Every structure is written in structure tokens, then in C-alpha cells.
């Protein structure tokens, strides 16, 4: 009866298997424990706590007092700084995100077309992206110096009187927009990797069919690159809405006011920083933080939802067949 296996033996091996699975599961939780603990300590816990704080009035020194929705009502009804910071951040994002993505894509396409010296040009375009935002802000304050900077000097040669840039409330934000296009090296490299991933035979087939460069770009490059464009778009929007470093360094140096001149660069994060850490109104700042969080969440979801229309996915095409 060597071929029959006793029920007890089967049960035993299953029990063995499940003990093994249990041991593996335990080991899994031991391995991921640091991250899970960190998630609770540094992310989920703080998020819940700040949600609670947003319904309180708290100056750190005394105990927080529950004020219900009062912070939120005040933000939307009688806080000009909130609307100013929202406007500054929105204007900046609307101009800087397309400018950055356009520049990054254009540079990536140029690099993809080149055959020789790609490494040198890639380095030249990428280096500004590794520069510390503080050093970049210090440097661009000098480049855009109204009287002695090379940009206004160059404009002077063309007979144009250059603006006051960071000292002029009408131009300060535009200085930051221009500056943001300088550091697009990361996005450029991601685009370049995306371009390299497009199979060459698609271009060859289109060329045989008589498609010119523009058509090949519009009907092959752009659709095949759309997942990469999507990724860069989402990350740039999230980044632009949380702009802080350069605006803080430029506006606090010399002028000494956060978001100056005349609140023209009062980014949302600068306003939150000022209220939370300079004025120590933690409850009110937490409400502001939650509003920005919801804005970012909604915009990200909108972009993700819209992506089904414009992002080309190989899997989707397979399914439709």
C-alpha cells in the first residue's frame, strides 16, 4: 500500500505548510516593521493630529481650544493673505509647469536627435538641476539684479529698459518662473529615458508610409511618450504648488519680509510657514495646510482621471482589440 497516503499525513503536511506560511508572514512583518512604524509615527499620526489641530486655536504655550469650523470660515471669509497666496501659487504653477515641461521635452528631443557629444550637452542641461535651491536663488538674484545684472544689461543693448525683477512686485514672480525653467534637468532625463524606450520600428514603418518628421512626432512620439508626460506633469504640479525654498531665500534676504515685495511672492507654503512657525498659530496653520492638501489631492485626481483620455497605454490597446 505504498501509494496510499494516510489522511493524517496530508493534514500534517498542510499544517506544516501553514506553519511555514505563518513563519514567512511573521518574517515579512519584521522586515517591513521600520517602514510601517515610520508610516504611523511620521505620516498617519501627524496627519490625524493636524486634522484635529485644524479645528482648534493654539499658540503652543497654552492648551489648544476647540473652535470647530471657525478657522476654515475665517480663511474663506476674512483672510486676504490666503487669497493672495492662492493667487501667487496658481499664477506661478500655471506658467511654470508648462514652461518647465516644454523646456524639458524640447531639450530631451534635441538630445535624442543628436548622435555625437550627447554626454556633454546632457551634462550642461542637467547640472543646474543638482544645484542647491539656496545657491540657485542667490545666483539668480545677482543674474536678475536690476542695475548690474547681465539680463538687464543685455536687454539694455536691445534698447529695452529691464524691470526691477525681485525688487518690483510686478516682476518678482516672473523672475521665479524664469528661474524654475533653469532646473529642469531631472524631468529632461526622464523624458529622454522615455524617448529611448520608443521602439525604432514604429518610426521606420511610418517613414515607409511617407510620414514626415512632424507627423511622426505628433502621431508616434507624443502618444508613446504620454505616460512619461503624465508622470512628469503630476510631479511638477505637486512640486509647483509646494514651492518654498527659492521664494523664501529671495524674499527674506535684504527686504526681510516673507513673500515680498508687497506679498507678490507670498507662495502658499510661505504663508503657512509664516503663520505656523513665525506667528505660532498652529491651529490656523493646520487648517491652511489641510486646504492645500485637498487642493493638491483634487488636482492630482483630475489629472489622473483625464489621463484615460490622453495617455496612451499599451495594455488598454491590447484590451480593445
Amino acid at each position, binding site marked *: 500500500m505504498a501509494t496510499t497516503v494516510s489522511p493524517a499525513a496530508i493534514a500534517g503536511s498542510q499544517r506544516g505548510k501553514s506553519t511555514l*506560511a505563518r513563519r514567512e*508572514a511573521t*518574517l515579512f*512583518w519584521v*522586515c*517591513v516593521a*521600520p*517602514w510601517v*512604524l*515610520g*508610516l504611523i509615527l*511620521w*505620516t498617519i499620526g*501627524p*496627519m490625524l*493630529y*493636524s*486634522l484635529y*489641530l485644524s479645528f482648534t486655536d493654539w499658540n*503652543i504655550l497654552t492648551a489648544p481650544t476647540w473652535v470647530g469650523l471657525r478657522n476654515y470660515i475665517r480663511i474663506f471669509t476674512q483672510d486676504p493673505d490666503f487669497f493672495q497666496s492662492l493667487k501667487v501659487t496658481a499664477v506661478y504653477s500655471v506658467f511654470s509647469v508648462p514652461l518647465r515641461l516644454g523646456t524639458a521635452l524640447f531639450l530631451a528631443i*534635441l538630445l535624442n*536627435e*543628436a548622435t555625437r*557629444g550627447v554626454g*556633454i550637452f546632457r*551634462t550642461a542641461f542637467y*547640472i543646474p538641476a*543638482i*544645484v*542647491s*535651491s*539656496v*545657491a540657485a536663488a*542667490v*545666483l539668480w*538674484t*545677482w*543674474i536678475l539684479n536690476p542695475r*548690474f545684472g*547681465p539680463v538687464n*544689461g543685455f536687454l539694455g543693448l536691445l534698447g529695452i529698459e529691464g524691470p526691477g525683477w525681485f525688487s518690483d512686485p510686478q516682476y518678482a514672480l516672473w523672475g521665479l518662473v524664469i528661474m524654475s525653467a*533653469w532646473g529642469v534637468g531631472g524631468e529632461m*532625463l*526622464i523624458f529622454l*529615458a522615455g524617448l529611448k524606450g520608443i521602439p525604432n520600428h514604429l518610426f521606420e514603418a511610418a*517613414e*515607409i508610409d511617407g510620414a514626415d*518628421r512632424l507627423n511622426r512626432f505628433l502621431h508616434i512620439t507624443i502618444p508613446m511618450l504620454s*505616460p*512619461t508626460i503624465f508622470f*512628469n506633469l*503630476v510631479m511638477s504640479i*505637486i512640486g509647483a504648488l509646494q514651492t518654498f*525654498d527659492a521664494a*523664501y*531665500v529671495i524674499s527674506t534676504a535684504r527686504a526681510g519680509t516673507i513673500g515680498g515685495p508687497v506679498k507678490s511672492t507670498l507662495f502658499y*507654503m510661505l504663508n503657512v510657514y509664516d503663520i505656523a*512657525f513665525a506667528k505660532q498659530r498652529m491651529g490656523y496653520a493646520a487648517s491652511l*495646510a489641510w486646504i492645500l492638501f485637498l487642493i493638491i489631492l483634487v488636482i*492630482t485626481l483630475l489629472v489622473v482621471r483625464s489621463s484615460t483620455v490622453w495617455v496612451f497605454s499599451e495594455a488598454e490597446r491590447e484590451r480593445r482589440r
Partner: protein
Amino acid sequence: MASTTFPRTEVPEGLPFFRTREFGSIVHRVVTYTLLVVLSLVFLFPFFWMITSALKPEQQIFLWPPQWIPDPVMWSNFREAFSNPLLPFHIFFRNTMILEIGIISGRLISCTLVAYGFARLDAPGKEILFGILLATLMLPSVVTQIPRFILFTEIGWVNSYRPLIVPAWFGEAYAIFLMRQFFLTIPRELEEAARIDGANTFRTIASIIVPLSLPVLTVIGILSFKDIWNEFFNPLLYLNDLTLYPLAVGLAYFNGQFDVQMSELMAASVVVLLPVVIVFFIAQKAFVEGISLTGLAGR
């Protein structure tokens, strides 16, 4: 129609040269390279301006048309910048290196462990947990900053490096994701051999996984180095004493002083960004690969 013939590739006889494909590709190449050269000069110009400004005598800084090449070259600007009591460079440098070592070691050790769990071990709920990990990649830090600051204030960690270093020992989503992808490509057989020899999981990770994963560990280490070097917001928030500042905060502080000479400021900026640029040139491949891989997180 036979699809094996390519009518377009045959250049018709007698077509004028400027309409041939060869001419088209020459024009294309000329345009491409002209744009590449011009644009790379535009991108590099600020560096040129910074370096020459750092080397000019103070009065030549304010000349227009500019003094393109400083005359005489004032290397002493660097010495003056760093003998300025407002810019104790060696202290800022030391502080930055403390943060670099504390954060990078914590990140590499904790992320290796977590990534191994996600790559190799099975447990109920693992998929959901990994989904949460990917979601945190996009999570804006704005809602956690204030309560974290309060937490670190309550436990008395403000004005020390603990709020900056300790969280790094709890893993970081992006590094975990990259490592997991890499670990999945390592054949399981290699580990089984070690396990038969009686090594436990942690020994296996240290003796098999880590040596095989040096490429991805390098990428993460190098990109972390750059990020920590440039980090501004958190050190600004948590450090109050000048003697604790890392370079980025120190430079911002120096920039905020009223009576700073422009040449000194530019000299300080050059020195602050030079190490990252040097590391970039040494480890260019790791940089480019690491950033290119970032795009994968979105797939």
C-alpha cells in the same frame, strides 16, 4: 503591391540637391547642433557669471559692459569669504557631513530590510501595504510638517539633528520601491544555497542580497547625498544655532546679511555647490540612471 520594396528610399534622378534626403538630414543636423550649442551656453551662463563674479575685484563687479575675464583674478575673495565670522564654512561643512552620514546610512539599512520584505516574503495584506507605499510617493508633506514640528518640540529634539536623522531610519518610499524592483531580478536560488548552509534571513540579506545590489545602493546613496546637501526647509525649521547650520542654511543666512560683498557671496555659492558638481562628474552614470528610473515609479 509588394511590401518588400521601399520606393521612398530611392532618390529620383535629377532632383535638385536641396530637395534630396541627404540635404534634409544635413539641415536637420545643423539645426539640432546649433540649438544644442546655443542652449547649453544659455544653461551654463549663470555658472560662468557666478565664477567670474567670485574672482573679480569688487569694483569690476559693477561694470557694464561687463569685465568678462576678471583682471586681476582675485583668489583672495575666497579667503575673505571664509574668514568672515558670519560664514564659519568648516563648521557648516562638518554639520552637512554629519547629516549626510546619519541619513544615508539609516536610509540604506532600513530600506534594504523593508524592500527585501516586499520583494521576497509573502503575507496577507502585502499588496495593500505596497499600494500605500506607492501612494505615499505623491503625498504632499504639507499636512505632516506642523504636527511633526510639535512632536519634536514636545520631546525636546528641536535644535538638534535628531528630527532630521531619526526619521531616515524608518525607510523612505522611493528608495524602497527602487530596491524592491532590483531585488526581484536577483535569482532566488542564490539565497536558497545560503539558507541550506544555515544562514537566517538577515544573514542572507547581508551576505547575498547586499553584495549583489551595489548598483542600486550606489544610485540611492548618490541621489540621497545630493538631496541632503541641498535640503533647506527642514534644517531651517529645526536648527536655531548658527553652529548647527548645514551649508544650504548657512548660505541663506549669509545671503540675508546687509553688508555682504557680492564677490564674497558668489565665492561662498561656488564652494557650496562645487562638491555636488564634483560628485556628479565622478558618479554621472549613477545620477543619470537613478533619475531615469524615477519615471518608472509612475508606470
